């Protein structure tokens, strides 16, 4: 057994930087800190005193990979504050763009970050250049799937990262329908590659269970990332406009981000794909359900590693949902809904790829932002991650330092965390006495 301070610096396949500090005494973890190590940019303060119309595009810059989630959450928050009701076409186009986001973002996480763990490699860069190799095939599947997600995003909202076309009340420019048939063809063809990935993540039976409390949006009429009520795994549902009624903020002195608990349970909880499938499995697209019939039996699941499988299942759901939308969509010319500014407060809640995201906008009579609040999924998962690691270390305290570090990183990676800011290291500071 080691004694004294041990610092292991490991660069991790996650977005942003995090540190883990563990203090072990007599074979028990006395103290474990999961620290989000990004420097804040104070964007919610930067938007104060700015006209609301400029804010969604600015706030999409909170995050490169889930940029579209922040964009849409901000649009919804501001539209709710202004009582702007967008058209059905706007809602459908946002749903389609969101399918594209999920296809690209889940594939980045599952293949670029997790797949090396399955293959026993350090990185996708180490996958052999051999066409018969499964890793090689999967990597090239991921290029095709991601590219299609990006191309679909570009066709609908102008870009996959920091998209220029969506605006308060609708779209600056509507998509060109003539692109749809080729996109439908490519989505049909990609299904086989996505399903190949489902099999890989289904067969990877890594296992870690601890928590069983989940929160996700549940659509009123089927699976929905953008509209619905907040559902908690104890059966309660809430209007997202009142998120402060069920979420309790926990200040974590050593982290650059606040954490959250479910108020009435005083419990940590998990948001993300696993939470969504545990709560909304019945709402998946019928074609997804049919073709994945033999791969859905693990859900509902408390195994954190099933988050990867859940993301892959959602990818197919989004492919199937996008095909349906593109087949039935006839673009009607329209301009964004416009209204004179009014005093108001609005919340926009969406499911980002890695969990529920809340934006809250307070706007004055002149249409100027007076206050803004954002709660991101990774901040919500922070306490859950910390408690998972604590349990994992206690259960496996006799394993080698190297193995503990590797497994801890794998568990963190399951959450698909997105610190979205400065890229520091995951430092595992392990103090054993």
């Amino acid at each position, binding site marked *: 057994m080691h004694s004294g301070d041990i610092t292991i610096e490991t660069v991790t396949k996650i977005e942003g930087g995090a540190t883990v500090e563990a203090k072990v005494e007599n074979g028990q973890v006395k103290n474990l800190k999961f620290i989000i190590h990004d420097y804040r940019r104070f964007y919610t303060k930067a938007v104060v005193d700015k006209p609301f119309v400029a804010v969604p595009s600015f706030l999409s*810059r909170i995050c490169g*990979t889930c940029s579209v989630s922040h964009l849409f959450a901000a649009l919804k928050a501001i539209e709710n504050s202004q009582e702007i009701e967008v058209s059905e076409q706007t809602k459908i186009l946002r749903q389609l763009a969101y399918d594209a986001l999920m296809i690209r973002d889940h594939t980045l996480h599952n293949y670029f970050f997790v797949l090396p763990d399955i293959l026993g490699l350090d990185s996708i860069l180490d996958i052999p250049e051999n066409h018969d190799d499964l890793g090689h095939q999967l990597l090239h599947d991921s290029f095709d799937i991601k590219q299609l997600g990006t191309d679909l995003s570009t066709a609908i909202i102008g870009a996959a990262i920091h998209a220029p076309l969506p605006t308060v009340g609708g779209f600056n420019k509507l998509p060109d329908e003539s692109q749809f048939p080729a996109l439908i063809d490519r989505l049909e063809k990609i299904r086989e590659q996505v399903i190949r990935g489902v099999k890989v993540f289904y067969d990877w039976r890594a296992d870690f269970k601890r928590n069983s409390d989940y929160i996700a949006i549940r659509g009123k009429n089927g699976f929905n990332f953008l509209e619905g009520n907040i559902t908690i795994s104890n059966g309660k549902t809430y209007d997202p406009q009142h998120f402060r009624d069920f979420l309790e903020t926990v200040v974590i002195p050593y982290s650059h981000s606040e954490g959250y608990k479910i108020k009435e349970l005083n419990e940590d909880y998990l948001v993300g794909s696993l939470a969504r499938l545990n709560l909304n499995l019945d709402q998946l697209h019928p074609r997804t359900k049919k073709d994945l019939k033999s791969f859905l039996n693990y859900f509902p699941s408390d195994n954190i590693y099933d988050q990867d499988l859940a993301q892959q299942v959602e990818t197919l759901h989004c492919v199937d949902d996008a095909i349906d939308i593109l087949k039935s969509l006839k673009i009607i010319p329209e301009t964004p809904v416009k209204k004179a500014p009014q005093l108001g407060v609005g919340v926009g809640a969406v499911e980002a790829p890695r969990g529920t995201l809340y934006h809250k906008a307070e706007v004055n009579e002149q249409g100027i932002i007076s206050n803004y609040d954002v709660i991101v999924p990774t901040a919500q998962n922070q306490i859950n991650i910390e408690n998972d690691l604590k349990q994992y270390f206690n259960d496996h305290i006799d394993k080698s330092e190297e193995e503990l570090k590797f497994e801890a990183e794998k568990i963190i990676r399951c959450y698909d965390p997105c610190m979205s800011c400065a890229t520091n290291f995951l430092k595992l500071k392990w103090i054993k006495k």
Partner: protein
Amino acid sequence: MSDPNPPKMVIGWFSFTGCEGCTIHLSELLNKNFDAWIKLVEIRYCKTLKTKNSMEGLDIAFIEGALSSQEHFDKMQKIRDNSKYVIAVGSCAVSGRPSSSRNDFGPDKIDDRIKSYFERFDYAPKVKKIDEVVKVDDYIQGCPMLADQFINALTKYLKIFKLV
């Protein structure tokens, strides 16, 4: 027989304060370019893609994001010392913005919540763009970085290193 270890341009990819949208854009450019680039380029440091990283002996360091703290300034200097060329990638690295938004805050905007972060962590008084801290050899504009400018820069340096 082809050389089993052909010479490659050794690059590092570093992210400071920003949204990592340029990294995400890079991951998208890999969709169509991975097979060609992997033959010409060794990615020696990129924490988004690999666990075992080294910043020793870099031909080029690509820098995304702005610099928020003394720790960042020191790390940036270390990267500069280890690299033949440094390229600032994307708006935050090139101009500081939008990551440097807090530089514009008047005293009225520095509330107790912000003060508590300033007190607990080593935030520098001002967020800096890369060339305020080290010499920068090239700039790739855009938010996120413009794909054409990135590909042009990569090609330019592959020529300098006589790999194309």
